[in-house]
């Protein structure tokens, strides 16, 4: 017989309750990047808007940065770590795939036996994690969910690639998502365009190192084996990011029933200032909307960029709790995720 199954009891809605970030202590100015590439501070700034970025030291691992950010997010949310019952971590730069780093975080932060898993959604990782968290809370499988984007992209940076050497930074950004009586996270407009999977990629798969066919692997000028790095087709990414992602951002606004006039804050993935500027123009955002421009001093930290920028806007008073913000992440896959949220 088919037994009647009792479903979980979820919350009517979910919202972001707290945010926290960690930026490595070492600040790397463009001058340091220029030791390895033939370029200039002016060129880097004009093409990317980046002046400095943070690069992690040996002690600032993905796990340590995540714990710092998670601790701040938990405190900011006003809950106890033990109340977190699911941990979702998006990262592409934690180089031990098994077990998922989320389990270590759940244990060390004091979240006990929380469900814990990693996701790989590149620079859309935060939006993907947020979408999952919202679903878990509304469906009833979790009450408080930690969502983290954490990256050490300096480990995946080819210092001799003049088109990307200056782009990437390290850091971790975390939010606690929890139950709410009012909608605090709008519908997610998310997806992938796998036909563009070669546009942003790791140069070689890890399995290449196992096979040991040196002809397939990247070599330095001295013939030594190089670590894989991220590479991208800049113009193609720019075109997609500015024009296709502006459409996705608009769809997220429409889906949430929020007009551009009613928006307080715009927090796009901090990929490049030129992308941010062009998106703002294409979206025709009103003057009063505060735009996150954290990329200038943080670089592109992939999945960490949106929560890091969110935390800084709130900490500096440029945005305030209760503000309505449009967030959109986009990157390797290609993947994207946009939604409208109430700021914690």
């Amino acid at each position, binding site marked *: 017989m088919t037994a009647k199954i009792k479903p979980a009891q979820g919350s009517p809605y979910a919202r972001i309750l707290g945010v926290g970030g960690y930026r490595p202590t070492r600040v790397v100015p463009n001058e340091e990047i220029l030791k390895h590439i033939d370029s200039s501070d002016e060129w880097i700034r*004009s*093409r990317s808007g980046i002046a400095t970025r943070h690069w992690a030291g040996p002690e600032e691992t993905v796990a340590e940065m995540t714990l710092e950010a998670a601790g701040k997010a938990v405190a900011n949310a006003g809950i106890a770590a033990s109340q977190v019952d699911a941990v979702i971590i998006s990262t592409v730069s934690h180089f031990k795939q098994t077990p998922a780093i989320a389990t270590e975080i759940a244990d060390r932060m004091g979240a006990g036996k929380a469900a814990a898993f990693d996701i790989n959604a590149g620079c859309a990782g935060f939006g993907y994690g947020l979408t999952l968290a919202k679903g878990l809370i509304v469906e009833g499988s979790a009450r408080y969910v930690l969502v983290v984007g954490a990256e050490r992209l300096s480990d995946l940076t080819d210092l001799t690639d003049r088109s990307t050497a200056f782009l990437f930074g390290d850091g971790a950004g975390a939010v606690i998502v929890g139950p709410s009586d009012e909608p605090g996270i709008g519908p997610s407009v998310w997806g992938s365009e796998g036909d563009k999977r070669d546009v942003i990629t790791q140069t070689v798969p890890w399995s290449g190192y196992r096979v040991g066919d040196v002809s397939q692997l990247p070599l330095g000028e001295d013939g030594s084996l190089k670590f894989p790095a991220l590479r991208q*087709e*800049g*113009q*193609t990414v*720019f*075109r997609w990011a*500015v*024009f296709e992602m502006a459409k996705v951002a608009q769809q997220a606004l429409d889906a949430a029933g929020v007009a551009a006039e009613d928006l307080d804050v715009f927090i796009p993935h901090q990929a490049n200032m*030129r992308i941010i500027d*062009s998106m703002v123009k294409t979206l025709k955002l009103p003057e009063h909307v505060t735009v996150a421009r954290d990329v200038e001093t943080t670089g592109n930290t992939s999945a960490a960029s949106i929560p890091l920028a969110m935390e800084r806007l709130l900490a500096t008073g440029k945005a305030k709790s209760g503000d309505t913000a449009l967030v959109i992440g986009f990157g390797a896959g290609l993947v994207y995720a946009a939604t409208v949220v109430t700021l914690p």
Partner: protein
Amino acid sequence: MAATQEEIVSGLAEIVNEIAGIPTEDVKPEKSFTDDLDVDSLSMVEVVVAAEEKFGVKIPDDDVKNLKTVGDATDYILKHQS
């Protein structure tokens, strides 16, 4: 209706003016986007997308790198406009 060569050059001049702030009268067929008109590789993408909309053409990324001068872009649009 297809645009004439003259209309395309003046249309591109308006686009370059909007994106790079170069006076329209300086945008001539022999001018190089990057060397003469302050249009870098990222601005070029914006010029291309604006030109696509204005003239109803598709300019794939692989073709963009061949469009060095205003004249190159004009010829491309003339040939490909529907």
